[in-house]
C-alpha cells in the first residue's frame, strides 16, 4: 500500500539547515495498523506529513497504492489527498463554524458528491463513531474526545485508502484516548490501513506494528500482539 525508499528531508532555517529525515526505508501493507514512535523532535510528524502529501520530501521515492508520488504541485496533491488519504490531527482541526455533520461532509464536497448524498453519508459515519445525536452541534459544544471522533468520522467519510493520525490521543485524557483507540481498531478491523504517530507506549501496543524513529532513521520495526482497547477495565 505504502512504499518509501531512501527518503530525506531537511528544513532550512536561515543559513543552516536541519536534516530531519536521513534515509527512511519503509513499507506498509494493506490492512496494517502501524504505530510510529520516537522521542520529541525525531521526525515522526515530518514523516507522516510527507506520507500525507501535506509536505514534500527532498529526495527519495514514494509509492502510494501503486501510484508513484512525485512532482507534486498543490493541485495534484489535493487530488491525491482527496482520493487516497484521511487525516486525524492532534488538534482536531475541525472548522469551528460548521456543525459536526457539515464537518464530516466537507471532504465529500470536494469529491463533488451531491448535498443530499453528503448529508446521508456524514450521518452514517457519525453514527459509526457514536455521535449521531450530536450531528447539529458546533465543535465548541463538543468534548475533546467527541471532537476527535468527529475528526475520525470526517477522515473516514472520504473512504480513503490510508488513514493518517498524528497523535490522535495527544490532547485527550486516558479514558477518552481508549474510546478513540477502540474506534480506530474497529476501523482497522474493517480492513482500513492506518498509521498512528504516538509517543505513548500503551497506545502503540494497541497497534499491530511499531516503528521506532531516532535521529531521522528507523531504529526498530517490529510486529506486536495487539492489545484490544476494549480489554481495559473501564
Amino acid at each position, binding site marked *: 500500500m505504502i512504499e518509501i525508499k531512501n527518503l530525506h528531508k531537511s528544513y532550512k532555517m536561515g543559513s543552516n539547515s536541519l536534516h530531519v529525515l536521513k534515509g527512511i526505508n519503509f513499507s506498509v501493507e494493506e490492512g496494517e495498523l502501524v504505530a510510529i514512535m520516537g522521542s520529541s523532535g525525531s521526525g515522526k510528524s515530518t514523516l507522516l*506529513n510527507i506520507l*500525507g502529501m*501535506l*509536505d514534500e520530501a527532498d529526495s527519495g521515492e514514494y509509492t502510494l497504492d501503486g501510484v508513484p508520488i512525485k512532482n507534486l504541485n*498543490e*493541485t495534484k*496533491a*489535493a*487530488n491525491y*489527498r*482527496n*482520493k487516497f488519504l484521511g*487525516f486525524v*490531527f492532534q488538534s482536531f*482541526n*475541525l*472548522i469551528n*463554524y*460548521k456543525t459536526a455533520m*457539515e464537518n464530516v461532509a*466537507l*471532504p465529500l*464536497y*470536494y*469529491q*463533488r458528491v*451531491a*448535498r443530499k448524498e453528503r448529508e446521508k453519508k456524514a450521518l452514517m459515519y457519525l453514527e459509526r463513531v457514536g455521535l449521531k445525536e450530536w450531528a447539529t452541534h458546533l465543535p465548541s459544544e463538543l468534548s475533546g474526545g467527541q471532537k476527535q471522533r468527529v475528526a475520525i468520522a*470526517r477522515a473516514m467519510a*472520504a473512504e480513503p485508502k490510508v488513514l493518517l493520525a498524528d497523535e490522535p490521543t495527544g490532547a485527550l485524557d486516558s479514558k477518552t484516548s481508549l474510546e478513540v483507540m477502540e474506534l480506530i481498531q474497529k476501523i482497522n478491523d474493517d480492513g482500513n490501513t492506518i498509521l498512528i504517530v504516538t509517543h505513548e507506549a500503551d497506545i502503540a501496543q494497541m497497534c499491530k506494528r511499531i516503528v521506532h524513529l531516532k535521529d531521522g532513521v528507523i531504529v526498530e520495526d517490529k510486529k506486536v500482539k495487539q492489545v484490544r482497547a476494549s480489554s481495559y477495565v473501564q
Partner: protein
Amino acid sequence: MFDIERWQEIFDTIRKNKLRTFLTGLSVASGIFILVILLGFGQGMQNGIAKEFAADASNRIWVWTQVTTKEYKGLNPGRRIELKNENYDYVNSRFSDNLDKKSPVYRVRDVSVNYGKETIGYSIQGVSSGFQFIENQFLSQGRFINQSDEESVAKVIVISNKIKREYFKNGEDPMGEYLDLSGIKFKIIGVFGDVGGEREEDRMFIPITTAQRVFNGANQVNNLSYTLQPAESFEQAVVESMQFSQELKSYLQEVHSVAPDDGSAINVYNTLENAKRFYGLTGNIKFFFWFVGICTIIAGVVGVSNIMLIVVKERTREIGIRKALGAKPISIVGMILHEAIFVTAISGFSGLVFSMALLELVGPLIEVDYILNPSVNFNVALSTVFVLILAGALAGFFPAWRAAHIHTIDALRDQ
C-alpha cells in the same frame, strides 16, 4: 458561478459569519451611499445656479454711459456721453445678423404719475417691443408695447404686477384705465411681471417714441439692450457675444470721440461673461464633488481590501483544513472571490438603491439657495458599484491566491 453546490457552501459561510459579512457589506454600502449623495448634491448645486441664471435672458448685452475720464482728440475729460437714435439704428443694421431682440431705453425724468388722486412713485422707461424678452418678463394681463404703438407714438403704458397690487386695490381691473403722466393720459394696455423678482417691477413702460417726443427726449437714448442669436454651444455663444460687445464698444467710442482706453465713459455689460464665470464655478464644484467622491471610493476600496486581507488571514487555518481534505487551490480562490463578489455586489446595490431613494424622496423637498433637485445619473452610480465590486474582487484575489498556495502544512500550523 452557476455551481449550485458552491452557492450553498457560500451561503452557509455567510450565514455563519454574520458579523464579518456585515462589516464588509457596511463599508461597501456606505462608500456607495456617500458617493451618490455627494454627486447628487454636486448636480443639485449646478441645477440651482443654472436656475439663478434663468432669471434673465442669459446672453443679454446692456450699454450705459457715463462721463469721459480721459482727454481725447482735443476734448477735455468730464464730458457726458449721450447715446442717440442714430447709434441704435446703426448698430441694428450693421449687426443685423447677430442680433435677436433689441430695444433702446429712454428714462423719463421729472414726470409725476397719477392714478386718480394717488401718485405712483415709480419710474417710467421708454422701450421697444423687444425689451420684454431681453428682461425676461412675462405678461399677466393684456399685451406689451408693440411695433405699431411705436410707429403711432401711442399713449399707452404697461404697468407691473407690483404696481397693480399697490394701486388697484379690491381686485380693481387696471386694464383700459388711464394714468396721468404730467397731465397727459396714458391707457393701460398690459400688466407685466419679472422672473427676476419684485425689484425689477418698480417701473412702467411706454413706447420709446412716445417717451422721446412727449417728454422732450429728442433723439436721446440712455441705454441699448440686446440679445444675440443663439449659438451652437455655450462656448460658441460666449465667443460670439464677447466679440459683439467689443465691436459695439469700439464703434460707440469712435462716434462719440472717446479714448479707446477710457474705462468708464461707455460701458458694455455682457451677462454671458458673468455666466461663464459662474458656469466655471459650477464646473469646479462638480469637480470637487467628484474628487471627494472618488476619494470616498478609494477609501472604500482600501477598506474592502483590508477586510479581505483580514478575512483571508483569519481563514488561513480553515484553508489548510480544506486543502488537507482535498480542496484544490483554484477552488479555494474561487470560494473566497465568489463570497467577496457576492457580498460587495449585494451591499453595493443596497447602498445604491438606498441613496438613490433618499435623493429621490428628499431631493425635491430641499429648499436652499443654489441647490435645486439634487439627483444623480443612474449609470454613473451603477458604474461605481461595478468599480467597487471589481476592486473587491481584485483586493480579495491576491491574498486568496497566496493563501491557497501556502503549503498546506504551513496553513494548518497557523494559529
